[in-house]
């Protein structure tokens, strides 16, 4: 991955938002877009058969130990 030579200087508390520069179609097809990908990871090579709770444990570790 080649890093671009551009830096953006902001203050400690500034809110920085990243964008890919493409415009969205907010609100028009929200549910249609989500429905198309529901269950897309059912046959995932690692996460298949897991609920999100288990996937999150896989990614972040177990929940609080105290």
């Amino acid at each position, binding site marked *: 991955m080649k890093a671009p030579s551009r830096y953006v200087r902001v203050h400690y*508390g500034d*809110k920085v938002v990243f964008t890919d520069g493409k415009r*969205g179609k907010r*609100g028009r097809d929200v549910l249609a877009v989500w429905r198309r990908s529901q269950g897309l990871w059912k046959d995932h090579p690692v996460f298949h058969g897991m609920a999100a709770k288990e*996937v999150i444990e896989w990614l972040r570790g177990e929940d609080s130990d105290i």
Partner: protein
Amino acid sequence: MTFKARLDSSIIISHLVGDAHKDDVLLAIDQLSRRKAELFFSLVCYAEVWTGIELMDDDERKAQATTSFADIIRVNSLMIVADNVAIAKEAARAQAEYRRRGGRREVLIPDFLIGANAAYFSGRLLTTNPRDFLRSFLNLEVLTPRGFLQKYSA
């Protein structure tokens, strides 16, 4: 006043794996869209979803998953937000408190960055997995999709 919420990666992961929360996720997303809510997503959560994409060994499925993730971001105008120094300090406070209470994890726990980021940007986190770590943030409302619908549906 604009309704704001931070989506946890578990929202998108529940949707993608199709677990027990999947229908509540759709209902909550529909409700948030109708409210024209401002939705945020942190880099840590982005990396978590992207890990799932990286783990795919089939190029075609990887491309499909990448497109679907990008479509979700665009259609919801999901704002991918960076942490800043204020957020880093708040996550550090939570980590230090956790260690003082006897917590044994030695690395900075992602939930603390996620909680601090959500508290900073919206004061609200929508998640299908409300982990104990998130209790460290008193100014953060942690909601499951069902909890959100019960509390905020008209």
